[in-house]
């Protein structure tokens, strides 16, 4: 077992004909992920890395089965690509695209919420189940199979943590990058719930950062619903405050977006908070 993706995953790549789409398709195929089709409007009929390309997701599903889609479509059209996958009946949509206007996500999220589909991201590195499937852009070489579930808002920091875990002999069940944008499809809470239910996951590493209140909400959830041990790592303690957000940001959150505040709340919920990737390993070892 694992969460979200595994060896049975049948993947569509939306935006397969773009530079990054083609490159990452090759890398995912190399990792053993089953990619059944690619989609790029008006490029139907092409073959990319041995994968047949269609104009629309619906045309793929008219001809074959697929359950998951990964999106490398440019920001201006990425939201429509999410809609397209959801409308066609894809159950898991992983949106890698960085730079989608937040107003587009304001439209996407209610649409997604009303349908039987899960969105990961946008602006995320995707999902990797070592030995199962890799749906995203995380580097293959850092992973090893095991029982730690990893969930993170970050990209390269996740790689560093996973790499450190693997080198210390601690393998992963699944690693989920939920993305760093203000509005995302899957929260820490959603991922924590899935890991809690996954028999192959015995403990969870949660990597957070300053901004928003996602980590505080996760702490509440952990207290109530998560029986498995959670180690958390929160970055941004020494970051300069208030460079981007005006008053209103602080007013909404009530000023609780600081890293110290998040650490305080997580520790209050019984979460073990690490100070570095190496410290995560130490904390995982004594679980």
């Amino acid at each position, binding site marked *: 077992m694992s969460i979200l993706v595994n060896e049975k995953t049948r993947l569509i790549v939306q935006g397969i004909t773009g530079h990054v789409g083609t490159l990452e398709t090759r890398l995912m195929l190399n990792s053993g992920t089953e990619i059944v089709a690619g989609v790029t409007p008006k490029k139907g009929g092409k073959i990319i890395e041995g994968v047949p390309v269609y104009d629309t997701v619906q045309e793929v599903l008219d001809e074959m089965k697929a359950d998951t889609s990964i999106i490398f479509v440019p920001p201006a059209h990425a939201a429509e690509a999410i809609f397209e996958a959801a409308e066609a009946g894809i159950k898991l949509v992983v949106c890698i695209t*960085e730079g989608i206007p937040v107003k587009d996500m304001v439209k996407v999220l209610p649409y997604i919420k009303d349908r039987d589909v899960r969105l990961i991201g946008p602006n995320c590195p995707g999902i990797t189940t070592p030995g199962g499937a890799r749906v995203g852009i995380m580097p293959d070489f850092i992973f090893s199979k095991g029982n730690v579930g990893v969930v993170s808002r970050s990209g390269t920091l996740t790689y560093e943590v996973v790499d450190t875990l693997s080198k210390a002999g601690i393998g992963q069940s699944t690693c989920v990058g939920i993305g760093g944008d203000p509005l995302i499809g899957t929260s820490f809470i959603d991922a924590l719930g899935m890991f809690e239910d996954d028999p192959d996951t015995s403990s969870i590493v949660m990597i957070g950062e300053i901004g928003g209140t996602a980590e505080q909400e996760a702490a509440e959830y952990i207290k109530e619903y998560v029986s498995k041990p959670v180690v958390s790592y929160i970055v941004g303690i020494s970051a300069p405050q208030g460079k981007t957000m005006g008053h209103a940001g602080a007013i909404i959150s009530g000023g609780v977006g600081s890293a110290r505040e998040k650490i305080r709340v997580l520790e209050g919920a019984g979460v073990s908070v690490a100070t570095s990737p190496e410290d995560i390993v130490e904390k995982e070892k004594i679980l």
Partner: protein
Amino acid sequence: MRLHEYQSKQIYREYGIPTPDGIICTTINEAEQAVRQLHSAVIKAQVLVGGRGKAGGVLKATQDNASSIAAQIFGLTIKGLPVRKVLVEKSMAIANEYYVAIVLDRSTGSPLLMVSASGGVDIEEVARTTPHLICKRSIDPYMGLMSHQLLYMAKKLGIDDITAFSKLIRNLYNIYETFDCTLVEINPLVLTQSGHIIALDAKINIDDNALFRQKAMQELYIRNQDDLEPQEVQAKKLDMSYVDMEGNIGCIVNGAGLALATLDMISLAGGSPANFMDVRGGADAFHVGSAVSITASNPGTELLLINMFGGLTLCDEIAQGIHDTLKKLNIPVVIRLTGTNQEKGWDILHGANVTVAHSTSEAARIAVEMVQ
């Protein structure tokens, strides 16, 4: 992207929101003439950071002292930014001050309308200590503002002219929607003694991700680059992100999370970052090289800490960019390079005068030792 107050006010006026009479000035002389023209006036520094009031950038002026007040404000540097423009505005006889803002609310995924009768003073303090004094309503993005929401808020604020208030808030939301804003804020919105509702201050923040479809904002974006720190501008042009800080260690990292982790570890080791540059995912030799040059050009930077985890970004590519750029610079460098093609990368850097570390913590520790 943040607009200047005077730019925000121009948009406000185009969208039917009243603002005080005002004149934008770039010299002391212009400011003095503007004060004379408006009789009694306020001179306000136009800088793209918050806290200008506390820094002395907003002062009343009369015809007698206009010249010296203007000189004083033009002489300021607020959070690293010199004052290049001031807005001279007619003074208002104020009966009441309010706070009004529309901001994206992450928790609901909708715009949030916030108003308070405690405008003008430190609204963040109000939010922290007396949150019940701030009235909040989610705006359903499909429905837009509804009249019962505006009626309720006007009554909460004790505003009698519900029609004028409703129109103003609808216009503000129109701006929010039209320009892909993440924030529009009026603090304070004032009721004048003659009974008019006027935006005394004006703030507009635009979603950077939406600039591709906001042509008018793109132009302002380009124009405003002169008013930002040069490193920040250069970084943005290359789609990288530069943030200035107080210390002496310059940080170049790929990815925001890893960058924050690097700052934290420098602090933990007793050091202090001068800045940080996020080169983002997928950067090539040119980007990394430019990131090194830009970061090194900050006067406070005594040492560079380069921390890269190569996934999509290849380590040999990164190493080449660093190697080529360092030849032209004379600054100590600690580098940590892990990931795809890492050995090739190390080979390239072998000859260069750099200290190699093998983890973020180690890199931070070495960097702090070296600058002490």
